[in-house]
């Protein structure tokens, strides 16, 4: 989860997110370089004493400032496409969970090996204990094993929602009448938070997502959550 006033990305909990952080650093550096160059040129334009207004025909300069941006764009596009295809790799998930968005809570279905279905509501402020995370903690978390590819099937029962967990690099829209799929592999155990990311009504900000990632051995022991 993010700490208060956090501006940067959260630390990665999946290999894809690690790639995305590296790509973000790369693209941001290019952005800073271009912005700095433009600001410098603007500063020079505003403080010059030169007054020649008859400059024309600068073919060499125009060639450079056409080719160079094209090269920069290619340098951004190549890593971007690489990560895009990486997210679609076939990875043979061990487990499939269904996540259904409602106004204003999530329903999770574990139907691979039996039938476990439960709702996940945000804890109302009056139900919070000191130390709980206001607007983030839920009554029932999604418990999952680490280091195993997991497939999420995401849909909605009423309006558009979006199932997002930033630290895993996940955000998938929950669309009524449509099944969207996303996969991930978590590398570290822990509790990871996300929030609904598509405006869905009055309590759009109050339907968070909480994943509890635990070692596979403990997960295999059977029911690890109470209903």
């Amino acid at each position, binding site marked *: *989860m993010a*700490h208060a006033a*956090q501006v940067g990305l*959260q*630390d*990665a909990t999946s290999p894809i997110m690690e790639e995305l952080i590296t790509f973000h650093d790369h693209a941001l550096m290019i952005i800073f370089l271009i912005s700095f160059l433009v600001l410098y040129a603007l500063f020079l334009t505003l403080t010059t004493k030169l*007054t*020649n*207004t008859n400059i024309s025909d600068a073919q060499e300069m125009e060639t450079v400032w056409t080719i160079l941006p094209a090269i920069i764009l290619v340098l951004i596009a190549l890593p971007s496409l690489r990560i895009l295809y990486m997210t679609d790799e076939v990875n043979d998930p061990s487990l499939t969970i269904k996540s259904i968005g409602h106004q204003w809570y999530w329903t999770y279905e574990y139907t691979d090996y039996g039938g476990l279905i439960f709702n996940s509501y945000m804890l109302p*402020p009056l139900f*919070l204990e*000191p*130390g*709980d*995370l*206001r607007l983030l903690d839920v009554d029932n978390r999604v418990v999952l094993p680490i280091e195993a590819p997991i497939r999420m099937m995401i849909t909605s029962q009423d309006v558009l929602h979006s199932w997002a967990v930033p630290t895993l690099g996940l955000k998938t829209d929950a669309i009524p009448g449509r099944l969207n799929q996303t996969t991930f592999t978590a590398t*570290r155990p*822990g*509790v990871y938070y996300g929030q609904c990311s598509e405006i869905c009504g009055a309590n759009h900000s109050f339907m968070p997502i909480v994943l509890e990632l635990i070692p596979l051995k403990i997960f295999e022991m059977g029911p690890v959550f109470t209903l």
Partner: protein
Amino acid sequence: MLATRVFSLVGKRAISTSVCVRAHESVVKSEDFSLPAYMDRRDHPLPEVAHVKHLSASQKALKEKEKASWSSLSMDEKVESLCFLLHKCGFGEKWLNVAEEGAADLCACKWLSSLPPVYRIKFKESFAEMNRGSNEWKTVVGGAMFFIGFTALVIMWQKHYVYGPLPQSFDKEWVAKQTKRMLDMKVNPIQGLASKWDYEKNEWKK
């Protein structure tokens, strides 16, 4: 008419400068914008028309004298004669050492520090005069700071009279327990919060 007088008080850039310039003109009136106009511009050194269109008697006499051979002019008259000056003080050419303050023009002529009548017939302002800075920035910065200060007062009023209390999760004890819980969960252990905590010594890393 009154509006033009008011505009003449305003600085160079605040409102349409053509209105301000017209307020100052006492000699040349540009009735029609399709006629060649006089302008004091750094990037337009030689305007299409002279500043003064209708010469007085003494100005006419000076012009006649200028037409004759320049060697017949006295030193003072040479100074007064603009043609002579422009010939001698070409762009970048220095006639004398750098002059008194305020005379850093195209030509660093000591004589031009008090510009002669002939110059004033052709031009309204010298380059030094047209490029001069102003104190407008003090007004702008002062005004901006004033309004920022006023906004601060508005925000203080809002906090007192409009906003409700903060949620309990902002209490110091709650934040302390919450932070402890986040450290136990090892939130962002690579570069974020938990990476700044020393788990052996049970304190923040130095």
